[in-house]
């Protein structure tokens, strides 16, 4: 009997979950932002790096920014090339998704790369015309990690030399002024 209940539950969950996954188109943020109305109200899947801050709101949701540009996979700090401005959008998800997630991407941190599925809400009338993705599922594709800084001795030496020369000149100017 217990096996039957488990199997029935599994079938039911699969039936409920499948349409969500099946109906969700995978789109890039760039395409979504250039054709926002064509995806309005639809289930879509987007993958990218979570960056900036996790905003834990009092209503039990978390707001974050998801960037699907090249910098998550090839960070500048690790010698990655420049690929233009960031491309991202705001996502809103249940705070349960953010309980054990890595910190968001910043200067010294590559944020977790996630795949999120949710409803694209373009100019949401209930939120004063904001546009965002209302997330129903979130899967971590790649863990976040700290990024190491590269050392640049030449810049340090140049900085020290320039500062020493500047200090000397300023000292000379002050001493000449006081002697006058």
């Amino acid at each position: 009997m217990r096996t039957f209940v488990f199997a029935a539950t599994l079938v039911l969950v699969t039936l409920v979950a499948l349409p969500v996954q099946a109906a969700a188109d995978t789109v890039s943020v760039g395409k979504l932002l250039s054709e926002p109305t064509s995806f309005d109200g639809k289930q879509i899947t987007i993958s990218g790096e979570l960056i900036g801050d996790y905003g834990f709101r009092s209503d039990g949701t978390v707001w974050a920014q998801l960037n699907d540009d090249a910098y998550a996979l090839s960070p500048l700090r690790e010698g990655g090339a420049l690929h233009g401005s960031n491309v991202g959008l705001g996502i809103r998800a249940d705070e349960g998704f953010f309980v054990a997630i890595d910190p968001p991407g910043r200067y010294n941190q590559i944020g977790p790369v996630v795949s999120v599925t949710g409803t694209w809400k373009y100019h949401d009338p209930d939120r004063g015309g904001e546009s965002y993705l209302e997330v129903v599922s979130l899967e971590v594709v790649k863990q976040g990690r700290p990024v190491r800084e590269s050392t640049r001795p030449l810049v340090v030496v140049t900085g020290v030399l320039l500062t020493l020369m500047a200090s000397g000149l300023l000292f000379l100017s002050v001493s000449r002024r006081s002697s006058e």
Partner: protein
Amino acid sequence: MLLRPTKDDLKLIGYSAARMLVISAIAGLIPLIWALAAREWAPAADFLVMVGLYGLLGGLGLILRPRNHRLDWSHGMVVVALIWLVVPLVGAVPLALSGHFGSWLDAFFDAMSGITTTGLSLAQDLDHMASSMIIWRHLLHFLGGQGIIIAALSLFSGAGTATLYRGEGRDDQVFPSVRSTARFIWLVSIVNGIAGIAALALVARLDLGFGTLRSLFHGVTIFMAAFDTGGFSPQSTSLGYYHSAPFEMVVAVLMIAGAMSFGVHYALWRRRSVLGNLETKTILLTFAGTLLVTQIGLATAGVYRSIAGLGRQSFFQVLSAHTGTGFSTVTSVELATWGGLAFGGVAIAMALGGMASSTAGGVKSLRVGLALRSISEQIKRVLLPEGAIISSRFWQNGPRTLSDELKQTVMAISLLYVALYVLGAGIGLATGIPLQQALFESVSAAANVGLSVGVTTPSMPAALKLTYIVQMWAGRLEFISIFALVGFAWSLVRGK
């Protein structure tokens, strides 16, 4: 006959400019200390180079010791124009070294945009930029807005300092002494700073749910960009990052405070009404007009599905444009699709700008009001009998007369702005950008706004980057100082 400047003229200009560079070196210590505290070692080294360069140039200037310390008008104007070139030139060094810019020109573009409180940016991967580098970009807004010259005037006394004050396009002297006025400006900035940062950080902590330190970081950076009507943002999605009406409301208050002249701040501190001022009436009228036009445009195009959405988004974008801030809650891709009336409403709001002697750019409300007044006077002259007496009086912190000299100045500066807008749009067109977008971006650069419809990108032609740099520089200084610098350079070459 054009007189070649003497060695003493050059020494005096170098010496006066050196003081500002020393102040810039001291300001540069802020991001340096921040970088060390945040353990951002590579940016710390970049800032050390910058501080050293500012200090070196400042030190070289200070040992010049001119015989005459009195700045005349031309000296003052040349110093201001020069400083507004040299400070961003050196200030671009850490930006260029950061690796977030495609070229040195791009870094200089950002530094010029920062100091002129424009807000257009060519930064790449801003979302991974060091927090100290972000602080420096926003501090450039503060230096330009509040600013280097004001700091110098507060600290150093000397004959002819009023020329420096006027050279920055400020003509609103609150107190008889320029030094007292400069100190009052600092007082206003500090009081607004404490209140603004506290309010933003509180909203970020309590409403947005950010961590305490990050709330403070967002509070500091957004305050500097809002109160100085700059428009840089710590995240790539500008104000759209926050998804919060309360946060936008605090920012709106700060943008309005930033676009007000310090004379109006003084009047409000003394609990005097400013509603009777020609400038206040004009800015309220033009803001209401451009907002209405934008809303009609958005409503007829069916862009928003609710009145709340239409009201919130149009109000924020038009306010940001009119105050010359350049924050946006919609993407540049979306802004570019605001065709017709909505597009026109935002563009006109940018072109008109904020109040005179504020950090806002554009033609400025006082000039718009005076120009309208002058036109209405001309119409009355035509319509009324020949002997009719037409009043040329207006109210601006007291009764004033609209003299012929004032009319000419107003018309000349307004025409120069229009010419600058058209010139930038023309060069944009020549590089293959559609007219509507070229005009929008040109107005945004020249009026020091910073809203973009996607033209300002790292891949745009170098000629256009240079054009926008010159537009930002000329628009911020309101032309006269730049003409003085060009004339000075010409007299160095061709003078006798």
